[in-house]
């Protein structure tokens, strides 16, 4: 028990210190050694914390009541950040964006100095924070290790990009520290600081290459996230002045649940901020833009941390959102995002963009779960988050490794990847299958999300999820088919994946399979208590009988193809040429047509880019979602004042 405060401080401060240290060390090998050891230490600390937490009976832990000095440090840090953002905005002539930093910082200073003070703990640890902490440490740590190998390959491949690897690693570690702070803090004043730090880190990572596109995209990410920060700051200030200085997130949720005056506005504003962070419509474009960054930063931004921060806040707020109009609007915005971004993902050939769009769409489903806010949907949402973190990290890293070897991240260029880069294709298979296929992960989550939306009489949401999930199946299956498509061009190519990259990929793949297999155990021992902590009560989301059936389904789906494959492996057969409507030439890769001309065979997937591409759908979708959010915010403001 006594170790907990030290472990928490270690997890927050250590990565930041290491980040700055890495920036100062000129030698590359030394840097790599230090970075690897630090990641190992971070993971060890996270696991230690988890063990200590569970040995103490897995009950919520409150820490740090006397924090006058730390509060001052945080205030100074906020001001430093503001100055930094303002300088960057002026340097790149985006003057107005600096206002989005200056105003909220001003509000926070005002709140800190003028609002009444109450005795409160600033750190709160429960199952949800422990889960986030593990995701950040393990998945984030893997990405940091992967980045070491990847960035070498990246700079060999992109010789035009100025080399700023030291800076890159500094930001990555800073990011990890800020995320730990974010999920441990209960004081909204602290949360606000870590929020701003992650916004700035993502801004710096997206702008890594310093091309014009990268700079524009990084500023887009910055202003959208800062806008969220502004709403967060207004919410916090309102809460502090209306509730005698209470700025505890847990207090806010329980007060809103009990219907205490002056808590609706903060809940709605913080939820709005969370939507910007998790890139929901209309704010999805920043995440698309973030794809210009090197792969580890997109993986870090997407899977492990940044976007999950928004979801984390929404899950915390969920009991307060349940059954309110605000919650319903948020659920519908989430469902709408789920549907529209899935449609847009069909039209994408760029693997990284497909991953980005599917990330947004999955986050949409999680937001819908949080918006409905019943214990069942939160249960489903937590599982979605777990599966999504691991599989998306795996997929992003895998696509990055494939790109380094194939020099393209176009899905069409992955035709027959299974025969060309078997290892990487196999990992991609695991990642994709775990993303959407029943009975792994997604199944239970979809199952209970659908059930809950019917139970809450939300027709629009039911339809959004049903159609969205049909579309999700389309683009993933299409991609899977590409991997195994066979043509004669499929010669094995040199796999230049570095060992550090392979290490992270393997860990993530193993984790993924374990999650699929151990999921019933995780449900009863970890997620159920988590829901109890948030709601106080719990009823079985998935009845026992279904759980057994589910286990049987998982086993059958694993076993059937393997057994069939083994049985079929040695059976003799006559090799035939495929029918091409002409005379086959060579081996099935070209043919002579009826005019006597030789035609080359080229197989591609359907994309319909001209009909349902981002260019066509993004702006209308953004407008619709924006309209819903404007209604939500104006309702709250109108009712509150």
């Amino acid at each position, binding site marked *: 028990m006594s170790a907990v405060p030290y472990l928490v401080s270690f997890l927050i401060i250590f990565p930041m210190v290491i980040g700055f240290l890495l920036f100062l060390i000129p030698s590359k090998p030394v840097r790599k050694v230090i970075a690897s050891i630090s990641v190992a230490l971070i993971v060890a600390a996270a696991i230690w914390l988890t063990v200590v937490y569970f040995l103490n009976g897995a009950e919520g832990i409150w820490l740090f009541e006397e924090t006058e000095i730390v509060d001052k440090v945080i205030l100074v840090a906020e001001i430093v950040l503001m100055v930094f953002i303002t300088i960057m905005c002026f340097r790149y002539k985006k003057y107005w964006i600096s206002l989005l930093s200056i105003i909220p910082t001003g509000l926070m200073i005002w709140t800190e100095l003028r609002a009444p003070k109450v005795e409160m703990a600033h750190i709160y640890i429960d199952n949800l924070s422990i889960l986030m902490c593990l995701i950040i440490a393990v998945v984030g740590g893997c990405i940091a290790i992967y980045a070491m190998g990847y960035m070498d390959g990246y700079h060999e491949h992109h010789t035009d990009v100025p080399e700023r690897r030291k800076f890159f690693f500094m930001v990555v570690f800073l990011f990890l520290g800020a995320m730990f702070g974010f999920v441990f803090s209960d004081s909204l004043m602290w949360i606000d600081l870590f929020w701003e730090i992650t916004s700035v880190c993502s801004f710096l990572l997206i702008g890594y290459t310093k091309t014009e596109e990268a700079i524009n995209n990084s500023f887009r990410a910055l202003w959208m996230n800062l806008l969220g920060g502004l709403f967060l700051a207004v919410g916090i200030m309102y809460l502090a002045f209306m509730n005698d200085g209470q700025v505890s997130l847990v207090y806010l949720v329980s007060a809103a649940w009990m219907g205490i005056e002056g808590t609706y506005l903060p809940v709605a504003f913080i939820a709005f901020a969370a939507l910007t962070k998790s890139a929901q419509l209309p704010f999805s474009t920043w995440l698309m833009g973030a794809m210009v960054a090197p792969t580890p930063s997109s993986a870090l931004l997407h899977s492990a941390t940044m976007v999950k921060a928004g979801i984390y806040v929404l899950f915390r707020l969920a009991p307060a959102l349940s059954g309110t109009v605000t919650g319903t609007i948020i659920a519908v915005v989430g469902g709408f995002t789920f549907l529209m971004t899935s449609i847009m993902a069909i039209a994408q050939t760029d693997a990284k963009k497909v991953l980005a769009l599917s990330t947004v769409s999955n986050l949409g489903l999680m937001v819908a779960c949080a918006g409905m806010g019943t214990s069942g949907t939160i249960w489903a949402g937590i599982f979605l988050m777990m599966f999504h973190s691991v599989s998306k990290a795996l997929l992003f890293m895998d696509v990055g490794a494939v790109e380094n070897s194939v020099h393209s991240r176009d899905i069409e260029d992955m035709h027959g990847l299974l025969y060309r880069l078997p290892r990487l294709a196999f990992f991609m298979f695991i990642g994709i299958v775990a993303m959407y296929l029943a009975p792994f992960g997604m199944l239970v989550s979809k199952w209970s999300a659908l059930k809950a939306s019917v139970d809450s009489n939300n027709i629009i949401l039911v339809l959004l999820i049903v159609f969205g999930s049909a579309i999700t199946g389309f683009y993933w299956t*299409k991609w899977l088919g590409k991997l195994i498509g066979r043509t004669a061009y499929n010669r094995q190519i040199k796999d230049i994946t570095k060992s550090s990259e392979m290490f992270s990929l393997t860990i993530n793949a193993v984790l993924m399979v374990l999650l699929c297999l151990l999921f019933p155990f995780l449900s009863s021992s970890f997620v159920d208590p988590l829901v109890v902590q948030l709601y106080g009560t719990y009823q079985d989301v998935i009845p026992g009988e279904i759980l057994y059936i589910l286990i049987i389904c998982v086993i059958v789906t694993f076993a059937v193809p393997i057994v069939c494959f083994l*049985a079929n492996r040695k059976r003799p057969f006559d090799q035939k040429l495929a029918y091409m409507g002409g005379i086959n030439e060579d081996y099935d890769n070209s043919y002579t047509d009826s005019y006597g001309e030789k035609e080359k065979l080229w197989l591609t997937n359907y994309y319909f880019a001209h009909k349902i591409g981002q260019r066509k759908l993004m702006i209308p979708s953004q407008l619709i979602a924006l309209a819903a959010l404007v209604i939500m915010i104006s309702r709250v403001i109108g009712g509150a004042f």
Partner: protein
Amino acid sequence: MLTPLSVRFIYAIAYIVLAPFIGGLLEGIGRKISARMQRRVGPPLLQPFYDISKLLKKKRSQVTRAQGFLLTSYMLLIIFTGAMLFFGTDMLMCFLMLSTAALFLYLAGCVTTSPYSSLGAQRELIQEMAYEPAILLTALGFYLAVGSFDVETIYNSPVSPIMIIPGFFVAFVFILTIKMRKSPFDESTSHHPHQELVKGLTSEMSGRNLAIFNVTEWYETVFLLAVVFLFIKNSSAPLVSGLVGIGVVLLTYFLEILIDNTSARVHWERMLTLTWAVTLCSCGVNLLVLMIVR
């Protein structure tokens, strides 16, 4: 009153054993009726079985080795899914597993080098996207009507679910045309090999593999018609509703044959928009009414 576990196992095993015979017989009847509609005599009733036994005797020839194992997996997973339904478990879960099984069919089409097979596989995916909402909504409809996803409970519901969810019934019957690969929606495997698609998804299947594909179709047909039956069956008048249910199942099957014989294939875009429109309207209106009444 719950059915004992042993009886439920017998149902599941009965499905595994009998479904191919029922499915084959239905196909035989269907061919006969089709022939009569076209003023032909038509093949003998048991022709589908003769076809299968002939296919099984043929020498193995394939374009790729992997096709065999993918198709076998497809068949086994469909059988497993059907057995789950007849065992009386969760319907939504059965439907979600159904799309997992369908993945293997898609892969079996893609893994060949054939352009027609790959194109057919792509179209199969579009079909899946078209019918999936209606299928999922059907499960949700039963949940609204009966209060449970359990097939067991649905089977023993006091009122025929169709009285409460007629809209869902319409949507489900509509997508049966796609699932049974009948025109106008035979996008992925055309009836006649001399068209732009050749035989689509099945172009490169021969001998044993084609037999596996056909038998799986029978299993799936029985599975889907069983869902139609569930719309009608109730426990207040089990015998009458059961008989009416069988009547409706046969009528539905006849309707599919009639549609098949009277329409030409439409463009897949038409299919997608039409199916989604029907699903949205009939299920949406039904949902709206139910949620107001509830």
